[in-house]
């Protein structure tokens, strides 16, 4: 009888409470809902419930189910504990079709999968037959090919599993967010912006000069969303030569820069299937391993030329920092592999000496994940 009331309450009251962002809990045979019912801190072994002005801790033996303001639902369920069982609060991932239950004990994560809470089975990282969890998920989700492909990319984490279950239940064919790494190749156009303090430099016209770049990238989805943290490390080399004639004086500036650049970007990729437009922005750090700059002044009097080197001096800082933004498209070759084409603008200036020469850069990038 009590179980029937519990089921009726879940079916009729749950949609109301969750859509209203209210919190709720089931305790014994009673159901309570309202705002600020559940304390901010809860684990697999306790939940704090507001009673009057106090927060009272309850165990999974006392509370059957509770729902938080953020829409997350936790259910009390028995898990094997040696020869007996013990109850823990598990978060329910997915509301219709296949459901996953998750709890964390210390650093260890536990997932259970099934059609409902009673028939679900544990999905360990490696089964007793040494089968990985993703292989088991691929088999379970074979009825939906896009979800089965996504299962090959899923991580043993709450957010990744929640995303996968939601994809399977709706059988949506969309790119699944996963960790990527690969090779970066490109062509970089660099224009140096001269120092105001050195008069000779201001006489020269600086134009964009090109050089090839090669490096690696990482792409880590943020909370399994379409946003990702996208750091890169690439080697770039630039040879800049600028000259000007001013009466009987020639001015020549040459700069050889080669080093490593580290853009640290936040990327958003639109979740379309074959071609995904993306945009990214963030900071960029440059370390110039080779940093040779000369500014020559040649005075011509009566066919005698006297050359003076106003350098070498640190016209360009060894370490530079700035901002970077760009956009492009990701062309998906398979569920796992993509090619990324991008145009990016960056501007960097000296870290130790902010008044040193700054660079403005336009970079054409091609990336492929391995």
């Amino acid at each position, binding site marked *: 009888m009590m179980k029937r009331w519990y089921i009726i309450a879940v079916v009729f009251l749950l949609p109301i409470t969750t859509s209203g962002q209210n919190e709720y809990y089931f305790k014994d045979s009673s159901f309570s809902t309202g705002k600020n019912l559940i304390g901010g801190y809860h684990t697999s072994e306790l939940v704090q419930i507001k009673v009057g002005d106090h927060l009272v801790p309850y165990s999974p033996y006392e509370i059957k189910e509770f729902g938080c303001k953020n829409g997350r639902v936790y259910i009390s369920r028995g898990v094997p504990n040696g020869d007996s069982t013990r109850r823990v609060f598990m978060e329910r991932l997915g509301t219709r079709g296949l459901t996953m239950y998750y709890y964390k004990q210390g650093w260890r994560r536990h997932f259970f999968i099934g059609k409902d809470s009673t028939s679900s089975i544990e999905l360990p990282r490696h089964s007793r037959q040494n089968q990985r969890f993703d292989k088991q998920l691929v088999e379970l989700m074979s009825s939906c090919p896009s979800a089965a492909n996504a299962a090959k990319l899923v991580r043993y984490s709450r957010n990744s599993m929640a995303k996968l279950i939601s994809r399977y239940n709706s059988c949506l064919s969309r790119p699944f967010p996963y960790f990527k790494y690969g090779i970066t190749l490109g062509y970089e156009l660099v224009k140096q912006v001269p120092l105001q303090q050195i008069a000779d430099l201001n006489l020269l016209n600086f134009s964009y000069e090109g050089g090839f770049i090669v490096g690696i990238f990482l792409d880590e989805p943020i909370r399994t969303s379409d946003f990702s943290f996208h750091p890169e490390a690439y080697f770039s*080399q630039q040879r800049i030569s600028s000259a000007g004639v001013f009466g009987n004086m020639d001015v020549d500036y040459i700069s050889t820069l080669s080093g490593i650049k580290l853009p640290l970007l936040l990327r958003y990729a639109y979740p379309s299937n074959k071609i995904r437009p993306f945009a990214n922005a963030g900071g960029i750090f440059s370390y110039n391993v080779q940093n040779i700059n000369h500014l020559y002044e040649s005075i011509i009097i009566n066919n005698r030329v006297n*050359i003076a080197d106003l350098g070498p001096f640190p016209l360009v800082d060894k370490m530079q920092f700035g901002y970077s933004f760009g956009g492009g498209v990701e062309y998906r070759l398979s569920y796992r592999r993509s090619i990324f084409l991008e145009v990016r603008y960056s501007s960097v200036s000296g870290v130790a000496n902010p008044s040193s020469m700054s660079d403005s850069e336009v970079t054409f990038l091609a990336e492929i994940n391995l």
Partner: protein
Amino acid sequence: MRYISLIFLIAISFFQIGCEKEAEVQPKDYPFVAIDKLDVMPNKYVAFHAKIAYGDTLELFDHGFIIYDITNHGYIISLGPLSKNQSEFNDTIYSGLVYGTKYYLKAYTKNAHYTVYSNAVFFANK
């Protein structure tokens, strides 16, 4: 295989950095010359390297260097004609420098119209 290709890529990149040629001055109608490297081993030798940027067709009938001491007393060492296609030269001085003395060195080039003196590089023979 993925890791091997990544390591290969990084190795190539480092190699590229090591092999990077320096930027060069745009060619002139006079034989522009600049000393870009100096190696001093006190009381043993002084070696230098100079670059030339020259776009004219006139022959270079002389090149060499001038070495001055602190009192501005100098002497010229001529290395003779130079092919107009040559973009660099170097030389090493093994004798004639007094230990403990400061010097400066300039390279020079000559064609039919111009005599060009390079930037000065300073060193102490001690």
